[in-house]
């Protein structure tokens, strides 16, 4: 069985075998550093979560450990479902390290200008991911890598989770929409609609529900008011509103009345 791994590559003259060789830093993200490396001679990327001096050390350890563990698990799950992701090769939560296969490509953020057809494939990949029971949690144009063949790879599952929830899936769509809007305001609408076309084709039934929910989440974040209205409005105002009445003092709800609705 050992032979299936091939011949072990040659190593330093002292005769020791390096299990993992760490090379140069290739990228530095918001929470982790990426290094080039070799694992038993195979080219890999080493992702290591760095400590954040700004937060409580206990919180820092908890977040880094859990995210490393979780990311490895999710990558494996996505890969098994046929989503294009870097393959997780070695996961070591105590050192906050993930070793994964190397993908060469450009960040989607840098190719969005000419990416109309590409966006459809991005939608297909996200749909596959969602169908596998995984949500990404940070699905922006910075977290899609496009390789030379034009295949989009989804990377960085650090904020992902196992979920089939409408809410979490909606957040993925919303984050992509918002990051397109932020990066390419004039093209965003078209790019998102191409993206959703691919998503819908692959996801099938229920994709419109996900889109609708993402719209709801966006609206909810706009102002606390809009959400509070539906939830906290006293009955007589609900019917007043239903009859077309406008609540010009509506902003009352966005400050100072989170838990006590008696101010009307």
């Amino acid at each position: 069985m050992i032979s299936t791994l091939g011949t072990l590559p040659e190593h330093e003259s002292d005769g020791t075998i390096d299990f993992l060789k760490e090379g140069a830093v290739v990228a530095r993200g918001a929470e982790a550093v990426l290094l080039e490396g070799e694992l038993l001679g195979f080219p890999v990327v080493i992702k290591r979560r760095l400590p954040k001096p700004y937060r409580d050390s206990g919180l820092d350890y908890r977040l880094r450990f859990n995210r490393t563990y979780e990311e490895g698990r999710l990558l494996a799950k996505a890969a098994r479902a046929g989503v294009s992701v870097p393959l997780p090769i070695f996961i070591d939560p105590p050192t906050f390290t993930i070793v994964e296969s190397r993908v060469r490509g450009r960040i989607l953020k840098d190719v969005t200008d000419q990416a109309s057809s590409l966006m459809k494939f991005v939608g297909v990949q996200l749909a596959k991911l969602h169908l596998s029971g995984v949500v990404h949690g940070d699905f922006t144009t910075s977290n899609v890598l496009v390789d030379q063949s034009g295949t989009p790879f989804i990377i960085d599952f650090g904020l992902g989770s196992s979920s089939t929830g409408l809410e979490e899936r909606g957040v993925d769509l919303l984050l992509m929409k918002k990051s397109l809007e932020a990066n390419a305001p004039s093209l965003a609408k078209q790019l998102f609609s191409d993206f959703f076309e691919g998503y819908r084709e692959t996801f099938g039934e229920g994709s419109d529900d996900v889109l609708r929910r993402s719209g709801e989440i966006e609206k909810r974040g706009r102002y606390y008011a809009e959400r509070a209205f539906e939830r906290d409005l006293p009955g007589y105002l609900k019917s007043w509103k239903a009859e077309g009445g406008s609540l010009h003092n509506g902003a009352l709800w966005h400050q100072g009345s989170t838990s006590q609705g008696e101010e009307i």
Partner: protein
Amino acid sequence: MRYWLGIESTAHTFGAAILSESGQLLSDERDTYVPPAGGLQPREVARHHTSVAPSVIYSAIKKAGLHPSELAGIGVSYGPGLGPCLRVGVALSRAVSAYYGIPVYPVNHAVAHVEVARLLSGFEDPLSVYVSGGNTNIVAWKEGRYRVFGETLDIAVGNLLDAFARQVGLQHPGGPKIEKLAMTGSSLGLLDLPYSVKGQDVSFSGLLTAALDAFRSGEKLERVAYSLQETAFAMIAEAAERALVHTGKTSIVTAGGVAANSRFNQMMVSVAQEHGAAFFAVPLRMAGDNGAMIASVAMEMAVSGAKPVDPEELLPKPKLRINDTEVGWRVNLRLRVA
């Protein structure tokens, strides 16, 4: 020399300030409503504003040594904010504008917070972290507007702190009291509270519920305050860090009332340092709502040739968002407030 009057009345503070063309703040008057108990009641706040507004505006103009007819323009915050409060400032500026024939500029309150911090910092194009009672926005200027790169998906961080404070029996405003409690609570250790960052966005409602539950089940208030503040700010810091990396900006400014919290700024300094970005925290005096920031935007608009609005078309917009307003008029001028 031209002078602008800025009028602020979106929430608890009624403010008026005079700013000169050279960026010198000549006066900065304000009167903040403090509720006798509980949270802000919009109608009560509006009543307060109505009673103090004339004297606040009068003393701002007088301290600047001007006559109203010498004003080059008026800026007024027309949203976002509490409807009844907004109406006070908007109605007054309509009146002053019409009486003296002075142009009036509608100013987006959220944009003003971010702009005054930028003008004070001297940075040309920073990432702005705007944290207050009604807003938690991480924004950067792109293609003629402030674009939202991260925000709260439910309640604002100031609202989180105030709501928690009110529920545990602390007087409004709760933020400074929680900050103080947190200092003594840090030695007690961090409670495991929900930490929710979704991409560059944050969510605080689960944190509020969990913190209140912890307090009600007998946990010491100092410890809960520390854990609440620490968790909430770490979430914003992480979201801001992501936005910084995503946008590639090279400087950060903090703005809004919560930016008066020293622990918050400490975290943001650390984020900036780690990425080699310059950092500027809005000075305490300019962190909360004030007329100076409204005057700053009016000045920028006028200097850049942006059109004033007809007084009869000037209406309050309680739900205005920071990215609703076109910002094609930014100038680079170092504001002097001393």
